């Protein structure tokens, strides 16, 4: 029997699918609907000092045929009265005592933190999440990402909170920083029980070509917003991995956030060390029902791989994520085209010729549209296989026999690294480059 339940740094939930603190968790009404649909936890839309929000608030990056591939917002924390939120937290816990209800908080002074922590504990919250991420509006008032970008301040506040709280504390980090491990370590040193990441990334999603204002436009003007949605997943996964691999930070549970939309995303975040995931944009796009697909896919994956709990495979990819200097320099692959599958779009040719290493040739017979690989020039970069629109038509095949391996790090240790521009040990020697005449010659068919 597969058991999806988790104990996330002291917060228990029937499954790892949580709603991130955002519009989907604005009210008790929504959270109860979500739990009913299958979500295991919810981080309440951030509570704090009274705020006023603007209209409009959201911008979108549409790419190809995908709407909201990237998404941004200039919304602040909740603008609903604190008393209403607290009453609804209590209500949700009454209906769903075994689901995780986490109160996201953001206030300024120590006294305010102590008061609001007391309030949410009284309302029955299972945990607290500290919002040090909001990249617009709140940071101008010294909160949100203003704290997330100052590890020392962050550590101090985590310390205050830990002293005041008797329920578990999650620290939510901002990605608007060069080294995520700096605030990560500060949070751990401040005593946090766990970490969640990422909050949104500072962004401008587009400019209106008539009014010259950035989206979303508020009466002719706009401001930088927070970026999220499928487009940010690669960044979120990288930061998650940095924390998970850190000897001290990696000891606390990590909640992965950023662009999660399908079961595959969930599995990938777990493989990189997350033991709960949080979702915002996907729910804003498709509604709570999207969890059905995540749940079914995750279970299918676990069944096929014979995992009972998510702790059986959490972090399994981490040993394979290494540094460049540890990669095998003797590993060699080259592209191979399956002529039976090729449809003759010649994208591999032009991408390699213009965008890579001039290692693909066209036939001199214009009726033959299937290109061929010039193996001597192929550096095995992958580009052609990535642009080819046919599945498994271009494969990268291994050319080394595995008998030799050496890494940059080993070469450095052996004192065997190129030191001058003309050093024979450097790469790129003997690479054939067509002539300038070739560059200016347009191929004519017929």
């Amino acid at each position: 029997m597969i058991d999806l339940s988790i104990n996330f740094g002291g917060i228990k939930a029937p499954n790892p699918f949580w709603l991130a603190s955002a519009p989907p968790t604005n009210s008790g009404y929504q959270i109860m609907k979500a739990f009913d649909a299958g979500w295991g936890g919810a981080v309440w839309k951030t509570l704090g000092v009274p705020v006023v929000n603007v209209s409009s608030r959201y911008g979108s990056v549409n790419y190809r045929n995908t709407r909201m591939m990237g998404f941004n917002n200039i919304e602040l924390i909740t603008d609903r009265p604190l008393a209403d939120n607290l009453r609804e937290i209590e209500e949700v816990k009454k209906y769903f005592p075994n689901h995780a209800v986490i109160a996201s908080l953001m206030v300024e002074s120590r006294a305010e933190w102590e008061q609001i922590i007391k309030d949410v504990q009284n309302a029955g919250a299972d945990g607290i999440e500290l919002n040090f991420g909001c990249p617009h509006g709140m940071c101008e008032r010294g909160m949100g990402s203003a704290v997330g970008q100052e590890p020392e301040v962050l550590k101090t506040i985590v310390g205050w909170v830990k002293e005041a709280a008797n329920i578990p504390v999650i620290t939510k980090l901002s990605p608007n920083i060069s080294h995520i491990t700096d605030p990560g370590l500060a949070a751990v040193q401040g005593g946090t029980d766990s970490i969640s990441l990422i909050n949104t990334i500072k962004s401008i999603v587009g400019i209106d070509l008539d009014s010259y204002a950035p989206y979303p436009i508020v009466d002719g003007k706009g401001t930088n917003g927070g970026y999220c949605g499928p487009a940010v997943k690669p960044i979120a996964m990288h930061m998650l991995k940095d924390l998970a691999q850190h000897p001290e930070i990696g000891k606390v549970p990590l909640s992965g956030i950023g662009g999660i939309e399908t079961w595959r995303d969930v599995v990938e975040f777990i493989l990189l060390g997350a033991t709960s995931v949080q979702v915002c944009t996907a729910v804003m796009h498709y509604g709570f029902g999207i969890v059905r697909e995540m749940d079914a896919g995750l279970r299918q994956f676990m069944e096929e791989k014979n995992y009972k709990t998510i702790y059986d495979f959490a972090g399994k990819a981490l040993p394979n994520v290494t540094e460049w200097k540890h990669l095998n320099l003797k590993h060699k692959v080259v592209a191979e085209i399956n002529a039976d599958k090729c449809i003759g779009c010649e994208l591999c040719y032009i991408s390699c010729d213009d965008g890579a290493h001039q290692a693909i040739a066209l036939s001199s017979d214009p009726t033959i549209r299937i290109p061929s690989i010039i193996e001597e020039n192929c550096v095995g970069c992958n580009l052609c296989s990535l642009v080819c629109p046919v599945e498994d038509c271009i494969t990268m095949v291994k050319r080394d026999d595995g008998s030799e391996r050496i890494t940059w790090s080993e070469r450095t240790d052996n004192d065997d690294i190129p030191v001058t521009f003309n050093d024979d040990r450097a790469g790129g020697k003997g690479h054939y480059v067509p002539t300038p005449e070739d560059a200016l010659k347009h191929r004519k068919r017929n």
Partner: protein
Amino acid sequence: MAEYKRPNSEAEFKKNFKQKKPLMNDTEAYYEASRCLFCYDAPCIQACPTSIDIPLFIKQIHTDNITGASKTIFDANWLGNACGVVCPTGVLCEGACVYNHQDVPPIQIGRLQNYATNKTIDAEKVIFKVGEPNGKKIAIIGAGPAGIACACEARTLGYEVNIYEAKAKPSGLTVYGIAPYKITNEEVLKEVDYLQKQLGFNIKYNNAINSKKELAGLEKSYDAIFVGVGLGASRYLGLDGEDKKGVVGAVEFIEELRMKHHQIKVPAKVVVLGGGNTAMDAASEAARMGARKTVLAYRNSKDKMGAYPFEYDLAISAGVDSLFNVTPIAITGNGKVEGVKFPKTEMVDGTLKTNMNNTFIVRCDMVIKATGQAKQGHLFEMIDDLDIDSKIRIKINEDFQTSNPKYFAGGDAVNGGAEVVNAAYDGKMAARGIHNWLNK
């Protein structure tokens, strides 16, 4: 099989002749455009007789540069809007799309093309520039696709242009011949009007050129003459009883249908003679006009038919029956058609033989002859030193110039009957040919 009720109003006519390739809406166009791979040296471009830069205009649609897309289209093909819907795209651009090799539906290039140009025409966007006037004049005979394309191109090169057209409307067979479920009269005329407004060429309607005197007049007043007269009336077959009431040529039948819509009456039983695309159109149209039984009769087997398979399928889906390996020998009836007498045919040693021992009569009230159009030989004969080939097609060189240097020609009159897109290409290239010649 479709059963069409006889249309008694314009609304009912429209219903029976519903557009086969309806205009895409913005979302549809956006999604479809997103599928284009932007192939290198794209095979779709090579398959288009006018070599439109298809991946470019599709990308322009996708990035919401509709005007730019239209410019890309019209730069290559002056009848870009009509061609989007009337071209046999399945055997041209879309037939060459690489997706076919993957058993994925090809990009709907024609409809995307139509989408872009339609929007631009509707918005009356000005996208063409008339060339600096060069003081020279070109006369064009025939305002069909070839003539219109020649006029447009010549205007961008700075020529003054007058078109002499026999009929009352421009666009030749595009408005008088093509099936109404492919394109409406309004759409055809709107495109010509759009071109004419920006490029300023004149069309003299009801102004047939059919005497030596008129030709001499043109030769005197113009620096060059383009002949774009297309083909002539439906061919006379020489059948017993061919002059009976109810025997009509396909081109004439279709022309009347296109002009009068529901006001023409098609009787209950119709026989269409022929196996080409025109026969398929005529049969489809008769069925859509409410004929209870429409029979296509072709003298050879189905696979020998000249029509594109999709045109045949379209006729069949309209409820048309077909009869293969039969050839008409007489029209029966008393002053009015009552039937067609057919013997069976068979292939003997590679030639088609009729078997007179095996004849039968198909009863009908109307016979549509779709066995080809006559050529405009009478006109060609009046032009001095004009070489024509054995099939009465005007001979031209690579500059579209005829053996009489002042005359250039293109379209059906030269190729013996092809598509609108070929005529559009010819007209454009002929204008360039004229320009080369006058600037030698």
